[in-house]
């Protein structure tokens, strides 16, 4: 993949297996600063494992991860990467035992030692960015709807002003209207930060809304990549089948 500018994140020939199951078979992926890349693919194609490999949550057997031009090769490198990235998990992964505001400012509060008063103010500012009222700050995650949980998770992902944000199925489980609202917030906040974004999703409406570029992952490899405008004329039967949601085609349904 040729980039005229240095990618913020690059995966080279990443392989990962769980027991006998080979999930990633040589993933190559690069994201430029400020670019929004969406990875699509069927269930079990290895999308989540790709993100987790980039973040050091799983250790690839083979391959390399570069962040801002530096090879991420040890715990120190992974720590440096995580300090400059944000992540929105599929189900939010909010901490049950903490309030909404403590969740939002977890990193500044617990990692960086920010005072609670200042952290509370910062949390409320970031809640406002995702259209949540200050009154939500003292609630527990279990008291929030699915859409509100996603917003809180988004506020937590952007609070440290990251250079790169990962989104794992950001609209899963949401109704179409709430999903669209979450997509709008993602676009707005990623642009406001000038950050790059790597998202994985099955939701084609979400893809069209948030992607600059789309990559298709199939059987552990990237088989197509192109601008979102080319999604309907990709020339790839796999992409065509996936985009149109057909059971018939080269991709076998995961049942």
């Amino acid at each position, binding site marked *: 993949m040729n980039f005229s500018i240095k990618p913020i994140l690059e995966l080279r020939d990443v392989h990962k297996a769980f027991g006998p199951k080979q999930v990633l078979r040589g993933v190559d992926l690069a994201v430029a600063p400020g670019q929004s890349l969406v990875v699509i693919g069927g269930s079990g194609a290895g999308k989540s494992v790709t993100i987790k490999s980039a973040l050091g949550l799983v250790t690839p057997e083979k391959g390399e991860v570069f962040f801002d031009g530096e090879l991420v090769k040890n715990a120190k490198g992974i720590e440096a990467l995580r300090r400059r990235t944000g*992540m929105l*998990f599929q189900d939010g992964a909010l*901490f049950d035992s903490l309030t909404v505001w403590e969740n939002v400012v977890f990193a500044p509060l617990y990692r960086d030692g920010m005072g609670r008063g200042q952290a509370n103010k910062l949390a409320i500012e970031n809640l406002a960015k995702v259209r949540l009222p200050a009154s939500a700050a003292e609630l527990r995650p279990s008291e929030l709807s699915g859409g509100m949980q996603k917003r809180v998770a988004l506020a937590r992902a952007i609070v440290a002003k990251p250079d790169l944000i990962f989104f794992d199925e950001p609209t899963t489980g949401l109704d179409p209207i709430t999903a669209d609202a979450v997509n709008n917030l993602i676009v707005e906040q990623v642009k406001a930060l000038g950050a790059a974004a790597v998202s994985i999703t099955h939701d084609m409406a979400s893809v069209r809304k948030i992607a600059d570029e789309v990559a298709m992952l199939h059987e552990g490899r990237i088989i197509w990549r192109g601008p979102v405008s080319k999604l309907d004329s990709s020339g790839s039967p796999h992409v065509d089948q996936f985009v149109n949601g057909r059971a018939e085609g080269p991709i076998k349904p995961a049942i």
Partner: protein
Amino acid sequence: MTAAAEPTSVQPRDPVLLRPLRLIGRTVLGGLREIGRITAFSARVLIACVTPVIYLREVLRQCLKVGYFSLPVVGLTAVFIGAALALNIHTGGSRFNAEQFVPNIVVLGITRELGPVLAGLMLAGRVSAGIAAEIGAMRVTEQIDALLTLSAQPARYLYAPRVIAGILTLPLLVLVADIIGVLGGYLVAVGALDFNGSLYLKNSWAFVTGNDIWSGVIKAAVFGGIISLMGCYQGDRSQGGAGGVGRAATLAVVGAAVLILASNYILTSLFVRIGL
């Protein structure tokens, strides 16, 4: 006798004969691997317990959960054990005309052995399972992954506060259990066995030594650490949804209970040797 039926020499390559050996080998290796994992996990968490940063707010929160909210169950256990112990010692002692030793043996039994062991076992059920379930749920809902992506170490933020709380609060619970256990013995001795109340308490107090109390407290601190560590370890390793979380809770209770009983014997042997 045909050639095929003739007795042959031992054939080490025969897979049928090797099967039991292979099973034994696999079990032993699996056990050693598990011990290695628990040791490495414990070392990582114990280092986090004694090096900065320590999250005091979390430690206090866990002290409340582990210690304060366990008071009723530990108190109830102690009062019934003290009462039953007094009855048993009176019945057994009457065979040797030694009924008068009820207060002495009750206080010794409670402080050195039954207080820490029973409080430990009760907390293994209540606390270890609770910790394993809580951390297991965090593992399967990606909350632990979220912690990692926020550059927070689970060993420092999640596990160390629980282990510190276990080590600090179980000795305090055992001191309370000692008092309540002696009180249980007192109630039975005075109410049902016609002991003189003030004499009972005087004998109990005169017989117990600082070493008796200390040995129980030291055991309790070790048991508190074991209970929290097993809960954290099994929770951390849980996978596969609700079933995995349930399995983690069960393994935590069983592991903590076995380790409490084994370490109780080791500590008792050590205390006997050094005269504590």
